[in-house]
């Protein structure tokens, strides 16, 4: 699903965020990405999201070589990936329903279809009863779950999360992680960048540890 081949990313100021990084995450796999801040986690996710492009090496996602994806095609590529942010990035002037519906509206789905899928996604994260509320009326954990619902509403094959539990207490964090596991169990490839080591140590999934842009360890 995600394949990095000797990927190097050097920013314009000369800083090398990733150095000849190679790894492979198979379809249907669930993997954690960890390491100190500055180890290259964010850069890695940015390369997968095509927010940045690699300086050298090859990034292949779902069999697609990202260096061949032109700027115009980026939006369509991104529609196949669900992204969960640390600060959930909800639109605060819209209801929970409208927030979750956003990816479907963007891809031009029918209203009936949108209603059905949004409710299915909200049901999945346990917030079906709160669809009419504004995000500010929700707790931090609930807001993050709305963010997750938005990420999965398009039924993406790949789910990426950048520090999804960064601002949550341990109990809520565990709950969020269980949610990701559930998606993984139904076939979605999941990759989660986090530095909550104590949490992921208990979860028995693959852990990719980065250090200074290189793979330090790879295993459960």
């Amino acid at each position, binding site marked *: 699903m995600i394949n990095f081949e000797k990927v190097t990313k050097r920013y314009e100021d000369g800083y090398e965020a990733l150095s000849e990084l190679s790894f492979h995450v198979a*379809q249907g796999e669930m993997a954690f990405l960890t390491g100190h801040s500055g180890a290259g986690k964010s850069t890695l996710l940015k390369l997968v*999201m095509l*927010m940045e492009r690699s300086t050298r090496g090859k990034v292949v996602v*779902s069999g697609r070589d990202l260096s061949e994806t032109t700027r115009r095609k980026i*939006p*369509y*590529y*991104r*529609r*196949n990936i669900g*992204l969960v942010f640390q600060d959930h*990035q909800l*639109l605060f002037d819209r209801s929970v329903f409208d927030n979750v519906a*956003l*990816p479907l*509206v*963007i*891809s*031009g*789905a*029918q*209203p009936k279809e949108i209603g*059905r899928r949004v409710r*299915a996604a909200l*049901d*999945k994260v346990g917030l079906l009863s709160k669809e009419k509320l504004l995000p500010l009326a929700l707790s931090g954990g609930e807001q993050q779950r709305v963010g997750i619902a*938005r990420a*999965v509403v*398009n*039924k*993406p*094959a790949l789910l990426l999360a950048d520090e999804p539990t960064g601002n949550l207490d341990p109990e809520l964090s565990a709950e969020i992680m269980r949610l990701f596991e*559930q*998606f993984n*169990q*139904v*076939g*979605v*490839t999941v990759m989660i960048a986090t530095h909550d080591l104590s949490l992921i140590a208990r979860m028995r999934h693959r852990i990719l540890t980065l250090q200074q842009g290189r793979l330090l360890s790879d295993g459960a």
Partner: protein
Amino acid sequence: MGLNMWPKKENREHKKSYQKNQQERRKIEKGATHGVIARNQRLNSYFMHHRQVAKESLLRLLATPFASLMTWLVIAIALTLPVGLYVFLQNAQQLSQEWDDAAQISVYLEQNINAQQGQKLAQHIESWNVVQQVRYISPDEALEEFKQSSGFGDALQYLNENPLPAVVVVSPRTDSSNLRLTQVLLDRLQALPDVEQAQLDLQWVDRLFRIMALGQRMALTLGLLLGVAVLLVVGNTVRLAIESRRAEIVVVKLVGATDAFVRRPFLYTGIWYGLGGGLLAWLLVNVVIYWLSGSVAELVAAYDGDFGLSGLGFLTTLSLWTFSALLGLLGAWLAVGRHLSKIEPQ
């Protein structure tokens, strides 16, 4: 292409939604065999999205009524000036149209010319191609006319003989803009052997036309300048709108929004600004006309005239609104082109 969220792995918790999803997928697959239907649906939702975005951008403007009204007023005032001038010129043109018909040349013949010679001369003049119409007035007829219109009728009875010369009234071909042609005609008439004097009546009408031509040019210049001003006002306002929604733009780009999708609400915002300004300008122009019409009526009455101010016609109004909406769209487009590409997810 998305891998299904709920594949065949049995999981009691997801079974229900999985089944629902299977039905859904069957429906979609059925739909996909009819490509036309799928495309129509896509087109449908495209237009629906346009309508939705148009509505949302309008509501967004109305959510901050004071700020929006300020912008609308600025645009309206900028549009009112050239439009008002245009209406003024339209009215002046209409008014002078009546005088234009009166722009005739009176050719006074020598006293010793008799009626036959006079009529022959009139026929000769009528054959010129710059002349539209010629009327011969004999001294007797002239006297009669004078009696009726001057009020000196009784006094004239004491004259031994008719002091009035025969007159040939020449109407030039109506080509009012061409003063030079009229001048040439005047000189040519003046040079005729039996003519005492040729006089262009209402020469000032032609001068008025020149002034009005100048006025039209001024209205156009003013319109162009203020049109640019409207562009800048809308552009700047939309730029601020883009700035204030930066975070939102980043999010929608990350969930797969195309540039067109991101652009759309701002373009509609521009259209609404332009159209709102156009509507207000229309209102302002009409208020001004209403305000002036009283004085104009008094003035016209003092001159014994029959003239009423005419406002913006249906077509003019329609073009004003279209034009202002287009100006708004263009202003927004310029702002969007400059500022939106700079906002990329970081």
